[in-house]
């Protein structure tokens, strides 16, 4: 028996599905061929891992969890439908319009206002506070 044929029969060999004659040939080949033996061992490990994962059971309350989730989703959907049109559409729209109006008013008022430093002519009543027009302190000193 060659390696290709041996590898082809490995699954059936592992599962005990081979006739006695071929089974003996595969066994003899495995004992003499390290490569095929390595493949056989790895596939046995793979089967062991598959079988190990297969027996893991879900949480016994999984169905309860699923049903609770479905119920919550339905309640949520129903509660959304039961909200009146005013609360669902008109109220948020009014709030949005109010916010936009407030921002717009703020921008307009901000543009109208001009600080005193940017005005060309200083009003008469403010000239007393104009530092540039004050007499120099140096001129008043003796030195």
């Amino acid at each position: 028996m060659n390696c290709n044929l041996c590898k082809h029969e490995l699954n059936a060999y592992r599962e005990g599905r081979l006739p006695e004659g071929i089974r003996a040939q595969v066994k003899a080949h495995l004992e003499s061929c390290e490569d095929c033996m390595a493949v056989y061992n790895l596939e046995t490990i793979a089967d062991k891992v598959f079988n190990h994962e297969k027996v893991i059971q879900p949480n016994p309350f999984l169905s309860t969890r699923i049903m609770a989730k479905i119920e919550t989703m339905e309640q949520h959907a129903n509660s959304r439908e039961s909200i009146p049109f005013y609360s669902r559409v008109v109220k948020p729209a009014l709030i949005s319009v109010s916010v936009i109006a407030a921002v717009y008013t703020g921008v307009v008022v901000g543009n109208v206002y001009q600080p005193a430093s940017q005005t060309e002519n200083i009003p008469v009543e403010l000239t007393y506070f104009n530092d540039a027009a004050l007499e120099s302190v140096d001129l008043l000193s003796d030195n």
Partner: protein
Amino acid sequence: MTDEEIIKQILQGNRDAYRFLVEKHQSMIFRTCMGFLHDKDETEDLTQEVFIQAFQSLQKFKGSSSFSTWLYRIAVNASLNKIRKAKKSSLFQRLGFFHGNDQMKTFDIPIPENEIPENAFLLDEQKQMVQSALNSLPENQRTAIVLSKYDDLSQKEIAFIMNTSEGAVEALIQRAKANLREKLLSLSKKSIK
């Protein structure tokens, strides 16, 4: 009561009847998802998603296939979608790992209590090797081998779920086994080095 009769009741408004379907099929869907995800918590979450998706689409179920076949299709698609999403985000996870602010994802499969620690460690290494080899398979080969190995489905049933011929499924399983063998060999050589 058959699945179809239960579905009829649910569609007539008896939502609680869905519990019977969940309890009947949850183990098989859990096994299928486990074959793709290999993590109990993630698998439970995905099983929940599958049943919710099925409940929401129940009106679309026409009965041309059995309910379990339909459920299997939803489970396979949901599992593959989850894996695709995980692959997309893995790039960012790797970047995070290089910056040292992320931890590598580890598989978490409970070890039976009666196993001694040395064997448990060996089994854990073996699990990761086999899971890694399985995860490297192309989607259609992976689906075929999971349905075959985890759910013990016949090639005919797998063909029905995958909407293909029995011959195609046989070829897929053969290719999957050959690829799995190659991958396992290369992984075991790496671990020896």
